[in-house]
């Protein structure tokens, strides 16, 4: 860990380490005592990075990033929320079990510093099962799932690509102020907002206390994005098709809205 830190010539290191028996993110300065650094537990570094970026104004930050972090960072850089020149990515390859758990199709980071690239997982069985259902069965399934929601906003808070300062979902127009569950619209609004930037890291599903299969919903939406616009989010070059005209030129108003 130290080695990558010295080699990459960064001023800060963002990684996870053991804290009181748990794994927590930590921002280390050059010369700090590293403690026991851990790389075995998935943690959304892109989300931590946007928070860190607000108070670390100078110096390079080295980040331990998995492939999904890398893609999330690419999305944030495209929207001018992060400065690519100030970032140094330390590639971390997910283990085979982690890839299986996320049903990940793109597990290998561009530079691998830790671990070995596992085989990408094939087609998602749970998504295929859902798409085989009839419309009314599927509606029944999702209503049963969304009824469990207790509006904890865990999926929003832990999402690496949720960056709005004012969340639309806290608006009482779309989410009832009182009472749970918040209804069908809540989850659909989140799904459509993330349509062009979700990197399928699975953090929403992991952080959900009632186990709503949110990752399956995200995967279905990104399938749509692929079919409609041939776009895969996490692309560092191409602008999101939802922010361009039909010919692919940028819109008049250069909005970074979600």
């Amino acid at each position, binding site marked *: 860990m130290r080695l990558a830190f010295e080699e990459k010539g960064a001023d800060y290191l963002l990684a996870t380490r053991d804290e009181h028996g748990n794994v927590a993110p930590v921002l280390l300065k050059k010369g700090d005592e590293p403690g026991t650094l851990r790389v075995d537990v998935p943690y959304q570094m892109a989300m931590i990075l946007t928070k860190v970026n607000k108070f670390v104004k100078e110096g390079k930050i080295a980040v331990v990033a998995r492939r999904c972090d890398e893609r999330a960072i690419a999305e944030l850089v495209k929207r001018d929320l992060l400065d690519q020149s100030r970032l140094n990515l330390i590639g971390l390859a997910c283990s085979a079990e982690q890839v299986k758990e996320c049903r990940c199709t793109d597990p290998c980071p561009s530079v691998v510093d830790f671990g070995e690239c596992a085989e990408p997982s094939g087609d998602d069985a749970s998504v295929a099962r*859902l*798409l085989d*259902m009839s*419309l*009314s*069965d*599927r*509606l*029944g*399934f*999702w*209503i049963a799932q*969304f*009824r469990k929601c207790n509006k904890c906003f865990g999926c929003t808070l832990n999402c690496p690509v949720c960056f709005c300062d004012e969340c*639309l979902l806290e608006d009482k*127009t*779309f989410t009832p102020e009182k009472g749970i*569950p*918040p*209804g*069908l*619209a809540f*989850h*659909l*609004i989140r*799904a*459509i907002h993330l*349509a062009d930037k979700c990197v399928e890291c699975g953090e929403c599903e992991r952080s959900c206390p009632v186990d709503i299969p949110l990752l399956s*919903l995200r995967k*279905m*939406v990104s399938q*749509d*994005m692929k079919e*409609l*616009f041939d776009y895969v989010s996490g692309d560092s070059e191409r602008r999101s*098709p*939802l922010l*361009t*005209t*039909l010919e692919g030129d940028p*819109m*008049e108003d250069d909005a970074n809205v979600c």
Partner: protein
Amino acid sequence: MNEFNPNILAFCCNWCSYAGADLAGVNRLQMPPNVNVVRVMCSASVKPEYIFKAVSQGIDGVLVLGCHIGDCHYLTGNHRTAKRIPLAARLLGKVGIDPRRVRLDWVSAAEGEKFQQVVTEFVEDVKKLGPNPMKEVRF
């Protein structure tokens, strides 16, 4: 007597479709009375959120009408609509609400007849689909 009468929400853009609807009215064109027209400044201001809210509260069909591509008062507003609305409709399909309940069409200010035709067709389609299943669901 118990014939199903769908409740339909139509978002019409101020510059084209609303004027088109006006023209249809002035010309006394006959069309089903199930449509509630909401005037918006541009079809791009119809956020998918509005559609989801309407559908989850039991509206049977949502019609989004805007200017033809290239005629938008705000130049590229309807390009945004053209990309957003199909995605929103597909997402509804993924959670089990028929995507045909959402329809996007272009109606210009001179196309009163097209407005009539679109509304008549859409009401027929939604009648075939039956009532919105979300009407029965209480969260």
